[in-house]
């Protein structure tokens, strides 16, 4: 009983930071409709800035002042990010902005590394709150009690701001219908900036507040991201009371999980999220998203056509040059080409879902890593020959995709995306924590291809065959009746349903097919490296694919492949430098701003413009 109470108190104290970060994210999403992936980075900045300030400012006043100032400073960073990075891309296609925020993550990561160095910083204890209180005999850190007491006040202040002030009225109105707010003469640009600043400040505050408990390190950004998304989704996007309640649920659950089921802490959170979304598809306090409410921004997508003979010739020539690589390239270049090919297939499989189906999967690594692990587990535990494992891996991934898709397709929009992310995280945590079977963090090793394939050049050809084959197959299906039905379901579900197309079945099958292809990429990967680790399933891997697809061009068939080839290539060059993330982040932000239709889309536009100027602009 005593332990029980103590644990609830610890959980409530932990909920404090989580709540602050989550409600910032929720606010930003509600008003601007931007899924701000960089929110974890703002939290991390808050911790670092708070730490630095605490070194200079003395005493209790300095401690609390530093926390407050850290919040304000991060709020200002938020203003910068909003004005410089996000403003230019508000008119870009839906969800494109999240790629920009990913660029911000990379930039912040390296900036923090440059300024504060690679070592973890131990947060200073709060002056005067160093000891513990004894509650029913159990020691509770004094700082926890303080946090526990502060949080409701912050929540109340926020509630007052949102429910009682003019700014709050505007924010709530914009959450419901931002076009109407604009039509009523409210300057949306400043409203967005203001909300982004407030959300960022809350994240910074959250980061600084947890310093005495957790310190500051460079992994904070991604570590907080998953729980924050879970909290926001469980509470309902845009709802503050929801975020508060969900933060408490998750934190308390986590504390209990650590005590009673230490192997399952990571899994637990996602299980709760999945259960909540199954019962309440829009979170505890969320509101149903009306389809098409936010409108399709950007130009409508052009009709697709099979490649013209000219394009086919170019592609064939390119493939021949690639196939001759072993004649003129080093062994290293073959390994690199193998990596790029695998990644292109992975990106193309996501593009199939995202571009043609309009199904934004945030957790596509589940199928890539899933396929890799199916193959690896078969070889490790069942001694299966490599060829068999290689064939079964895509099937396993495809089946997993069917099962996950079956659940996720009940939801739409951001909730759909979040649920796919949750499933991917679920798989990741399973693999990470079920060490006996999966090797946990140590991964599975010694997974070499069969003897006849065990040679860099031969494996390069093997990959070329399957990756190019897979990409061509994905592309062909896009032109088949099924691919058309998938686009029909995306363009107008209403028309499709009332002309006899079972849109959910079409989408589910597309999910399975994309998962199959992702699994194929994963199987190619595992035998090219000879090992697999849980990071093939993690959020960052899913984001890699997302970014590549968006930057390549969602609305162009070649988008996934073009983006995959370009960014894998660039990444390989950049990772040789120390601060490659900084450069990569700026590069991503740059492409987002300059080419909002992606590389392939912008190239196509350029070609068209050249063509029409050649014909004297006769059109």
């Amino acid at each position, binding site marked *: 009983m005593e332990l029980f109470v103590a644990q609830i108190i610890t959980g409530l104290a932990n909920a404090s930071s989580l709540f602050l970060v989550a409600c910032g994210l929720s606010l930003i999403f509600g008003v601007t409709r931007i899924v701000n992936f960089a929110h974890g980075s703002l939290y991390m900045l808050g911790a670092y800035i708070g730490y630095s300030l605490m070194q200079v400012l003395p005493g209790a006043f300095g401690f609390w002042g530093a926390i407050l100032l850290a919040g304000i400073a991060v709020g200002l960073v938020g203003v910068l990010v909003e004005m410089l990075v996000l403003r230019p891309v508000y008119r870009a296609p839906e969800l494109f902005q999240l790629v920009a925020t990913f660029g911000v993550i990379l930039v912040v990561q390296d900036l923090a590394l440059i300024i504060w160095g690679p070592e973890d910083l131990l947060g200073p204890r709060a002056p005067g709150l160093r000891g513990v209180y004894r509650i029913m005999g159990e020691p509770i850190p004094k700082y926890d009690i303080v946090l526990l007491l502060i949080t409701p006040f912050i929540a109340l202040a926020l509630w007052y701001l949102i429910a009682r002030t003019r700014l709050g009225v505007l924010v709530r109105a914009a959450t419901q219908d931002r076009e109407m707010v604009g039509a009523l003469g409210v300057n949306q640009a400043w409203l967005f900036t203001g909300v982004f600043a407030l959300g960022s400040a809350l994240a910074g505050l959250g980061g600084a507040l947890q310093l005495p408990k957790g310190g500051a390190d460079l992994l904070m950004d991604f570590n907080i991201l998953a729980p924050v998304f879970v909290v926001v989704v469980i509470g309902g996007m845009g709802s503050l009371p929801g975020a508060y309640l969900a933060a408490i649920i998750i934190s308390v659950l986590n504390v209990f999980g650590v005590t009673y089921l230490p192997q399952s802490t990571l899994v637990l959170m996602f299980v709760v999220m999945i259960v909540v979304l199954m019962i309440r598809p829009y979170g505890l306090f969320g509101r149903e998203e009306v389809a098409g409410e936010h409108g399709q921004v950007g130009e409508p997508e052009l009709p697709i056509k099979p490649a013209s003979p000219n394009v086919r010739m170019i592609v064939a020539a390119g493939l021949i040059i690639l196939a001759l690589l072993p004649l003129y390239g080093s062994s290293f270049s073959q390994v690199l080409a193998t990596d790029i090919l695998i990644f292109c297939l992975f990106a193309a499989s996501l593009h199939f879902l995202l571009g043609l189906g309009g199904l934004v999967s945030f957790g596509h690594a589940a199928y890539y890593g899933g396929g890799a692990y199916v193959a690896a587990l078969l070889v490790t535990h069942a001694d299966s020959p490599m060829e068999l494992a290689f064939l079964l891996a895509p099937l396993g991934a495809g089946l997993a995709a069917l099962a996950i898709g079956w659940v996720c397709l009940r939801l739409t929009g951001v909730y759909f995306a979040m649920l796919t992310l949750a499933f991917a995280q679920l798989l990741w945590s399973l693999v990470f924590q079920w060490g006996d079977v999966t090797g946990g963090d140590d991964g599975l090793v010694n997974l070499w291809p069969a003897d006849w394939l065990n040679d860099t050049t031969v494996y390069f050809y093997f990959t070329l065959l399957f990756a190019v084959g897979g990409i061509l197959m994905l592309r062909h*299906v896009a032109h088949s*009746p099924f*691919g*058309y*039905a998938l686009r029909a379901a995306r*363009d107008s579900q*209403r028309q499709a349903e009332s002309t*006899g*197309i079972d849109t959910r079945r079409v989408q589910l099958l597309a999910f399975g097919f994309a998962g199959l292809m992702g699994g194929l990429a994963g199987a190619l990967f595992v035998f090219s490296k000879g090992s697999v680790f849980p990071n093939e399933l993690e959020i960052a891997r899913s984001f890699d694919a997302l970014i590549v697809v968006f930057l390549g061009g969602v609305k162009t068939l070649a988008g996934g492949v073009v983006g995959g080839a370009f960014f894998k290539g660039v990444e390989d060059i950049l990772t040789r430098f120390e601060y490659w993330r900084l450069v990569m982040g700026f590069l991503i932000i740059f492409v987002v701003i300059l080419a909002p239709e992606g590389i392939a889309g912008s190239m196509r536009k350029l070609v068209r413009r050249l063509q029409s100027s050649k014909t004297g602009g006769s059109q």
Partner: protein
Amino acid sequence: MTVVLETKGLTKSFGGLVAVDDVSFQLHKGELLALIGPNGAGKSTCFNMLMGQLKPTAGEVFLQGENVTGLTPRRIWRKGVGRTFQITSTYASMTVIENVQMALLSHNGEVFRFLSFAHKRYREEAMALLDMVGMAEQAERHCAVLAYGDLKRMELAIALAHDPALLLMDEPTAGMAPKERVALMQLTSDIVADRGVSVLFTEHDMDVVFSHAHRIMVLNRGALIAEGTAADIRNSELVQEVYLGGGTLFSAEEDAHA
């Protein structure tokens, strides 16, 4: 005369509000039947029940004698019902002809084919349909750039793709210029005459209703209050009262002045 569509006591209530109250009617083969009524009369609710978007609280819908109450829109479409929407609903990323081909692919059960090229399937049939609605020369245009009136005509071609026995048109001329309205309804009534399709449509434009409908039903507060030819409806005092108000307020005022 063959009855194509029949409803018996069709009722839909949302909580305490009875949106459609005990509506029974028949639609005969080759007939152009209009369903009119003031805003909020229950026309769209009625339509959505016929098409399967809403489940009736009570009552039944028969299609050529077969009970289709509560079936999904997909199933009802398969039974030979085409529909057009009040606000056009089209596949914006496809060309005009591909929009029609999509319906033909579905009709021929080819949605789950992976090998053939979709744009090569049923081109001639699609072209014939587009020709019928006067859209043949625009077949290869991107549907997102079409004028609204052309979109409506394309939607009509889609609705006719599976050679339906019944066509449900929800405010077919909404959002169109007056000249286009007349043209679209003329086209529709020609198709009714040529193909023997039966049409049920709702409409707010009385010119369109009175010049094309064979028969008119008037819905008010969920109940059918009148039914008959254009002349019957025009002369019905009840209908005039519903549309123009009974003038009771004015006459009361006059009484007071007198």
